[in-house]
């Protein structure tokens, strides 16, 4: 199986605080990999490291390496902006930009310099279709994205990421702000997306991890405690800590 990311001995510190500790793991292509673990264990940190969103935080020190498509993403000459177009990201709270639905999705391509209205139109439509949102919004592409419901907004954010033709989509608790129905839709969507994209998802909802992911990594205080097929993690984990956590007896 091919890997999208190969993480090797990754350490990350916020100032003096160690947030990731010797993480070594592979993230396989075209699968869904879930990161779980208690609050503050470093899930988001690890996720953000994958598209170097941590660059934006002062005081971060990283060693070890991450290879994306065989290339060291921390290399000096590595093009971060390009990485981020290839590795899209969806956040916890749906955060459409305060623009129209159309402009939201066209935002990324426009930033890349695409100006042709027709091309943009096509990108927007295709992204919306792929994000299972097209039918719901096709008649109001010009309206503010803020008027969509929470679930629709989150799918819009996914469409926005898709519009960049990424290979990987990182998702940081994408449904934690949504109600169960909206969550179900997003989960269906994620499973659908898996066919085309590699997905890495952080979730607090263990059932969600169990439900949609192929592989699950359990992190604790910055360490990767266990990483295995999801079925194994949730039915028969090797580590007591994992078991305690997933059965809700952690503490």
């Amino acid at each position, binding site marked *: 199986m091919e890997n999208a990311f190969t993480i090797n001995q990754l350490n990350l510190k916020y100032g003096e605080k160690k947030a990731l500790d010797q993480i070594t793991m592979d993230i396989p292509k075209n699968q869904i990999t879930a990161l779980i673990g208690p609050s503050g264990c470093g899930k988001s940190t690890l996720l953000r490291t994958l598209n170097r969103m941590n660059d934006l935080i002062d005081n971060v020190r990283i060693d070890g390496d991450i290879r994306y498509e065989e290339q060291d993403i921390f290399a000096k000459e590595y*093009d971060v*902006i*390009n990485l981020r177009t290839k590795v899209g990201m969806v956040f916890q709270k749906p955060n459409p930009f305060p623009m129209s639905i159309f402009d939201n999705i066209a935002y990324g*391509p426009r*930033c*890349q*310099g*695409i100006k042709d209205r027709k*091309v943009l139109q*096509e*990108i927007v439509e*295709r992204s919306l279709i*792929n994000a299972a949102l097209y039918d719901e919004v096709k008649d109001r592409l010009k309206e503010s994205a803020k008027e969509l419901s929470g679930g629709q907004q989150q799918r819009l954010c996914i469409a926005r990421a898709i519009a960049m*033709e990424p290979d990987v989509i990182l998702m940081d608790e994408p449904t934690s702000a949504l109600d169960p129905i909206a969550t179900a839709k997003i989960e269906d969507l994620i499973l659908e997306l898996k066919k*085309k994209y590699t997905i890495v998802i952080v979730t607090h909802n263990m059932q969600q991890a169990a439900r949609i992911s192929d592989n699950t990594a359990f992190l604790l205080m910055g360490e990767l405690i266990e990483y295995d097929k999801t079925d194994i993690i949730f039915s028969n984990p090797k580590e007591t800590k994992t078991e305690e956590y997933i059965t809700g007896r952690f503490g």
Partner: protein
Amino acid sequence: MKFPIFKIWDVKKKNRFFDKLTYTGLLIPTILSASFVVLIILFITERGVAPFLPSQYGDLSVNFLRFMTGTTWYISPNIYGIFFIVINTLYVVFLSALLAVPVSVFTALFIAKMTPKPISGFFQTVVELLAAIPSIVFGVFGLGVITDVVKKIATVFGMQTAGGISALSTVLVLAIMIMPTVTLLSITAIKAVNRDMENNSLALGATKIQTLFKVTLVSAKSGIFAGIILGIGRALGEATAVSMVAGNAGTGPDFNIFNTTRTLTSTMLLGLKETTGLDYDIRFSVGVVLIIVIIVTNLLLNAAKKRIGKFS
């Protein structure tokens, strides 16, 4: 079903370049903005220090120590005293804050929490407009209305004012002037208080008033205090309105609210337009003192705010 590959290399370069440009480009306005304060300080201290320098004024140079401790503004030809003015200024501003704060806070409470929307909207607009009224209008109002009122109040107390021109009038004018500011900021702070928290209080069987006092105000105190700091700042720096009703007492300090008083700003403004030489430059010295007073007051108040905001 992938999209056509973007042709982005040239654009990318452009973006990168523009990004670099922005980084440095933004530093320029920032430094510019920051430099003004340096300009101001350099400029007025240069002039403000001059009166104390024998090199500038020779025998006429002002004695700095007497300047800082003096209780009479001017004794011919070169003795200036500012100590009592500082005290009077702080006294007047303190009293006006004492007066304006409760009224403002209550008004804010009233507007934000106790009236239905259309009425509160109307009142808020009134307050907003007042906040935008040029201070000189308050001076006009002070001279036209407040001095009259104060004169009558003084009579009630068996005191005599200079036709109402007095510390009290100054206090009232300042209080009225800073009220809109403090009120508006308090309204903002009060409105920002988490509704849930208030509901929580009510759900605990507290009455609306108990909730307003014990929860809403307590939660908003940091914001309210920020408003007070702003208001006090405005009061300290206000010149025109104050000089119209202060009376510009020559000596002090004087804590009788029915007597005339003198503030740093009124001193600066008084006759500034016609004066020259030492008497002109000394006003810059007053300006330096004013700035220092404002900075120190701000520092103290901000420190106090930090302590007050401890629990929020």
